Structure formats: structure tokens, C-alpha cells
């Protein structure tokens, strides 16, 4: 059916909760397209020949094909196309940095705004969840077993792809709940946990077993997973230990890692009245760092009732590594950006509680090896920021639990697992790895892409052996 294209140069805007309202609740910020808006936006896609969007997608979703289905109002058809490539469409539609991936390559973006691919993906996934009652069924077993370490985006993706091929997949998760960063890290207002649970239930319905409370490297080793009859093991154990700055005062009460702060709120539900997990009631909060995790921590602190929340970042606004949309949302919610500022000491009171943060102003010098301009401290520019809570969001270093208990598993000087090329093969036969455990802290979709590539490689490896 010929589609009448929508030539509006602008993307249909995403309806959102009013900033004045949302900064007091944990409900989802972005409300999602209506049916009409979705169909109308889908008609902006030119269905161009080269499909640059598709090659820019880490999991290679056939984007023009699913968008055409939306334009033709075949939502279930659109969902089928997405789910051929992605195990977690409702998640990716919400948290992918589309502006650097599919949408960044969209030809409509040359003279105007790109097609709202992420928003359409989310719409399709939500439509499916709300309208489809049919449960996915487990495919016929091929008799082979695979173990996956970590039920985060990478492990879930690998599990989904392998289960669809007939493998008996068991995921071992260290926490009491599956989802990894999707449940402990990304806040409810950006990714409702009910959506994550639904995606996980879908995986269980196709036969994936998830064993929680299993810290691999402690209760079982990788070698024992092989002894249990698994023919391959995929390590998707995530980013690991939070970094601190090693400045004086970091052990004062009121200094959190972003991981701890967010885990208390998200996984342990400290934002809910009557939660049994405590969290500090803060008035003035400094979040140190400029990535997406820093934005999540700052926006959470605001919702927890803090009056003033600062993002303290040593480079400028232009250099913030967080997604533009997250920075904009944070600004709308009243987060104060103290850029070109670096903490040098945390100040405490007589009870060991944080009472301030000594900072120094920075200026940008020549670009460093990362290509970003290097921040340099300005002499005699120290000042004290009046805060009672400090949240460190400056990255992580890899967890030693698996590498220290898996003989022959090669890691690099940072402690990340070394893999061969794009398929995730490690220095151990049959052991594959991907996601943050390999790359260091990165994005959900890159972890999913790695899980997908490894699933393919594992399938080829097991087939070649038998």
C-alpha cells in the first residue's frame, strides 16, 4: 500500500510529565506516543534504499521495515520485525542513545530532524505488551546447554537468542532480582521496572532458567559450570566496583557511590514509603560526574526531596558525556550544573557527616588523547559548595570475582576481560564475554549487541563441535 509521506521537518514531540510535577514523583517522565502520533511519525520515514539507520544499530534491527508496518497500522507485524533482532525492545526504545546510532544516520536528519525511531520502537513494544495476550512458547530443544553469568542486558540478550535456537539456557544472577543495571541502576522514572519484569517473563516463557542469588566465582566457578554439562559459558557480569577520587573526606557519612545511591532507591525501593532499606534524607546534594549515571543520581536525589542538587563536572556543558535528552530533562527539573568545577576535599562536621565540598574551578586546555580538551585547575579559585550529601559518579573498575577464579581467562591491565574481535571469544575455549565486563562501563545497547554477537558465535562453536 502506498504511504502518503509526512514531510514535516520536525520530529513529533514526545509528551512528557510537567517538570514541576515530575520532580516530585518517580513515575515515568516520557509518556509515549499516542496511536495517531506514532502512525503519523512513521510516515516521515522515506524507506530509503541504503537504510543507514539499520547499520548504525548495534543489534541491526530492520528499522525501515518495522516503521513501514507502523505506517500501515500493523503494530503486531512491526513488533515481530523488531523482536527478530532485539530481545528487549521496550527497554531499548527508552534508554538507547538513538541520536548517536540509528537516528544519527537518518537521512531526514540532514535537512531537518531525524525520524523518531526510538520513540516508535517504544510505541510498538508498549502496544504489543498492552494488546497481545499470547505468550511466547519455548522452541524445540536442541539438547545443548549453555550457562550465562549475569541477568543484565547483555546476558538477557544472549539468553534470548540462544533459547530461540533451542538451547537450554540458565542465567546465574548475583542479586535477588534479574535485570542487572535495568533494575538496580536506571531509575523507575526512566524505565519502569514492570516493563523490565515483563521482558524477563517473556524470556522465561521461551524456556530460559534464571537462578538468582548465585555469585559466580564464589558459589560456583566457570569450570564447575562446564562440569555441570554446559558446553559454553557467556560472561556478562557487568561493570563492577565504583571508583572514588581518593580525595580527603570520601569516607564521611553522606558520601555515596552512584551505584550505592541508585541501588538503594531502585533495587531496594528506598523511594517508597515504608521501605526497609534506609537512605539519607538530603537537603543539598552534589553529584560528581557528567554521564548518564550522574544524571540518574541527580534526578533521583531531587525526587527524594533534596532542595538543591548540583552536577559537579570538571569539563564544560559541551563535553558532558550524558545524552542530551537526559541533560535537558535534568535542567528542566532544576538540577544546577556546576561545570568546569572539580572537588578537592569533602568537609565533615564533628559527627563525621558531610557538611561541604571544597572545589576548584577549572579551565579547558589542549585536547588530550581522548580528543577532549583537558581540564586544568585555575590557581586560587577554591570555594566551598554547601552540601550534606555527595554522590560519586565517576565510573567503575572491573569486578575481580570471575577473573580471579577462572584460570586461563585473560584480562587487560585495567582488569577487563580480553575478547577476540567481535564475537566475544575469550582466551578460554567455550568461554565468551561481553558488555561492561569487557568494555568497561558503556551503554545498555552495546551490551546487548555484544550478547547478540556472542550468542551467534556460541551457536556456531557448539554446532562445529557436534
Amino acid at each position: 500500500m502506498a504511504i502518503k509521506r509526512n514531510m514535516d521537518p520536525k520530529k513529533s514531540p514526545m509528551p512528557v510529565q510537567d517538570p514541576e510535577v515530575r520532580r516530585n514523583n518517580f513515575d515515568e517522565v516520557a509518556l509515549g506516543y499516542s496511536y495517531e502520533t506514532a502512525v503519523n511519525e512513521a510516515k516521515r520515514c522515506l524507506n530509503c534504499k541504503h537504510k543507514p539507520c539499520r547499520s548504525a544499530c548495534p543489534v541491526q534491527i530492520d528499522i525501515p521495515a518495522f516503521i513501514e508496518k507502523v505506517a500501515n497500522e500493523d503494530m503486531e507485524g512491526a513488533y515481530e520485525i523488531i523482536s527478530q533482532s532485539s530481545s528487549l525492545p521496550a527497554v531499548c526504545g527508552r534508554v538507547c542513545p538513538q541520536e548517536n546510532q540509528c537516528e544519527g544516520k537518518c537521512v531526514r536528519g540532514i535537512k531537518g530532524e531525524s525520524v523518531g525511531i526510538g520513540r516508535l520502537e517504544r510505541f510498538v513494544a508498549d502496544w504489543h505488551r498492552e494488546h497481545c495476550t499470547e505468550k511466547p512458547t519455548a522452541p524445540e530443544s536442541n539438547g545443548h546447554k549453555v550457562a550465562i553469568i549475569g541477568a543484565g542486558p547483555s546476558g538477557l540478550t544472549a539468553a534470548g537468542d540462544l533459547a530461540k535456537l533451542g538451547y537450554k539456557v540458565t542465567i546465574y544472577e548475583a542479586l535477588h532480582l534479574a535485570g542487572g543495571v535495568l533494575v538496580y541502576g536506571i531509575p523507575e522514572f526512566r524505565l519502569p521496572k514492570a516493563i523490565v519484569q515483563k521482558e524477563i517473563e517473556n524470556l522465561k516463557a521461551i524456556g530460559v532458567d534464571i537462578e538468582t542469588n548465585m555469585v559466580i566465582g564464589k558459589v560456583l566457578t566457570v569450570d564447575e559450570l562446564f562440569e555441570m554439562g554446559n558446553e559454553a559459558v557467556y560472561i556478562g557480569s557487568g561493570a563492577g566496583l565504583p571508583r572514588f577520587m581518593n580525595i580527603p573526606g570520601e569516607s564521611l557519612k553522606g558520601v555515596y557511590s552512584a551505584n550505592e545511591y541508585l541501588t538503594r532507591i531502585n533495587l531496594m525501593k528506598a523511594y517508597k514509603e515504608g521501605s526497609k532499606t534506609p537512605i539519607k534524607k538530603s537537603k543539598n546534594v552534589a553529584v560528581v560526574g557528567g554521564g548518564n549515571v550522574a544524571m540518574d543520581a541527580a534526578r533521583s536525589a531531587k525526587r527524594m526531596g533534596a532542595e538543591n542538587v548540583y552536577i559537579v563536572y570538571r569539563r564544560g556543558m559541551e563535553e558532558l558525556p550524558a545524552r542530551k535528552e537526559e541533560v535537558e530533562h535534568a535542567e528542566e527539573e532544576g538540577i544546577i550544573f556546576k561545570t568546569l568545577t572539580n572537588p578537592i576535599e569533602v568537609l565533615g562536621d564533628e559527627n563525621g557527616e558531610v557538611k561541604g565540598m571544597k572545589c576548584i574551578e577549572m579551565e579547558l586546555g589542549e585536547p588530550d588523547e581522548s580528543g577532549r580538551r583537558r581540564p586544568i585547575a585555575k590557581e586560587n579559585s577554591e570555594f566551598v559548595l554547601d552540601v550534606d550529601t555527595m554522590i560519586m559518579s565517576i565510573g567503575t573498575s572491573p569486578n575481580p570475582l570471575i577473573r580471579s577464579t577462572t584460570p586461563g581467562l585473560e584480562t587487560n591491565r585495567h582488569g577487563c576481560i580480553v575478547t577476540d574481535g567481535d564475537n566475544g571469544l575469550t582466551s578460554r575455549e567455550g568461554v565468551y564475554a561481553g558488555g561492561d565486563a569487557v568494555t568497561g562501563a558503556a551503554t545498555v545497547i552495546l551490551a546487548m549487541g555484544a550478547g547478540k554477537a556472542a550468542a551467534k558465535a556460541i551457536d556456531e562453536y557448539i554446532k562445529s563441535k557436534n
Partner: protein
Amino acid sequence: MYKIVRKESLNPTVSLMEIEAPLIAKKAEPGQFIIFRAKEDSERVPLTIADFDREKGTVTIIYQIVGGATMELDTLKEGESLQDFVGPLGQPSETDGLKKVAVVGGGVGCAIAYPIAKKLSRLGCEVHSVVGFRNKDLVILEDEFKAASTELRIMTDDGSYGTKGLVTNALEELINEGNQYDEVIAIGPLVMMKFVCLLTKKYNIKTVVSMNPIMIDGTGMCGGCRLTVGGETKFACVDGPDFDGHLVDFDEAMHRGTMYKDFEAHAREASCNLLNQEEK
């Protein structure tokens, strides 16, 4: 779910639970810990392993009721199950090459000191144990310590049992009697461990302490359990929980331990009020 196969009250505030957890029992070593959640909405709390039985597939924990989480744990009865039980976490205590050791336990810390004393004794090491309690009613594991030690000194704050005084008094006595220890292992309240370390520093005896700070995941992810050891930041969950006591910044650890004191007091109060209502 993890079934409670045995529950026993050791004193008015301390109880023991033997829990079915075969995979953990298979790997557990003295010095390691578990994280439990009593119920689906409970807090995650670490507890050091008090004992394990590889054949039976059980792990024993001994806990003192200090806040909401342990109070909730205590509501569970024999035959019921814990929601979550994860482990064995942390590094096992080092026992290699030790020939003569003084094991010092304080209060409920004795529950963690005991399995180490037992293991050392089994390995042929000469174990002297010093255990301290506030009073006679709170004494736990006396027979067990007796069996694992060639010398046992029991101290109480009020003199209602054993000798009146602190564990450091008894330890110093033992040292002055000419006992040469390869190592002192001290497990108990932070303030006790701090003073044991000050004493052993004076006599230049290596001292290992077991730290039990606030923790969430227990696998290194949250960093809540961080301590300063020898000027470096260490995570008790992956680097410990055992550390060289002469390097630990105890004052800082004591401060950090009080982070949620108000919250805990409130939880205790709320819970007691509930119990009171039930009794009426």
C-alpha cells in the same frame, strides 16, 4: 527459598539458625559471610558464617537483634524459609602456617571467632581463646570454645561469670605469661577490635580483624562497605572481611557504622510497638 532446619535461642538477644543451602555449605570457609533477606521486601544484610555442614548441606548463622532486618529474621520459625541467602562471600580467613594463635571474641562476634578457632585447632594449631560478654546471661558457645582451645579465658564486664574485666586484660595476661603468638585474631565490636589492636601493636603481634560494615550487594558493586586500610580504600566485601588490624582506621569505621542509627532505632521502635499490640 532457604529452609530453616534448626532455630535455637542462645541468649535473650542472640539466636542461631541452621539453614538449608547446600551449594553454599559446599564452598564455605571460616571468615566468609552471606547476605540474607528474611522476606520479599526486607533489607539485604550481611552476616558472617558461624558454621557449615558440607554433608548435611547447611550453613549456620548466629545473629543478634540490632535493627529491623534482624528483628524480621527472628520472626521466622523452624521449618519456615528465608527469601534470599547468598554466599559464600568475601575471602576466607588465612590459616596457613599458623602454629599458635590467640582468638579473641566479643559478644556475638564469638559466633564468627568460633569457626576459625575450630578450623585452626583441627589443623593442629595451638589455640588460646579469650571471649568477653557483658554479663553471664549473654555467654554463648562456651562448650564449643572449650573444645577448640587449649586455654580459654571468659571475661564479663560485671564479673557475673568468668573474670571481671575486658578481653584486653586477659590477652595481655596471656602475653605476659610468656605465650608467643604467631597471630591474634580479634572479632567483636569495633571498639573492642580497636583496643585489641592497640595492645598487640605494643607487643608487635600481627593481628587480624573481621570487619562487618554496612553493605548492600556484597559483591563489590555498591562500595558502601568501604574502609580505609593502610591509607587505601578497601571494600570489605571483596577485599575482606579480614584485614590487618594494625592498618584499619577504626574511628572512621565506627563513624560510618552509625550512618543509619536513627533509621534503625525507628525500625526497632515501630516493630516493638507492633509486638506490643499483638500481645494485647
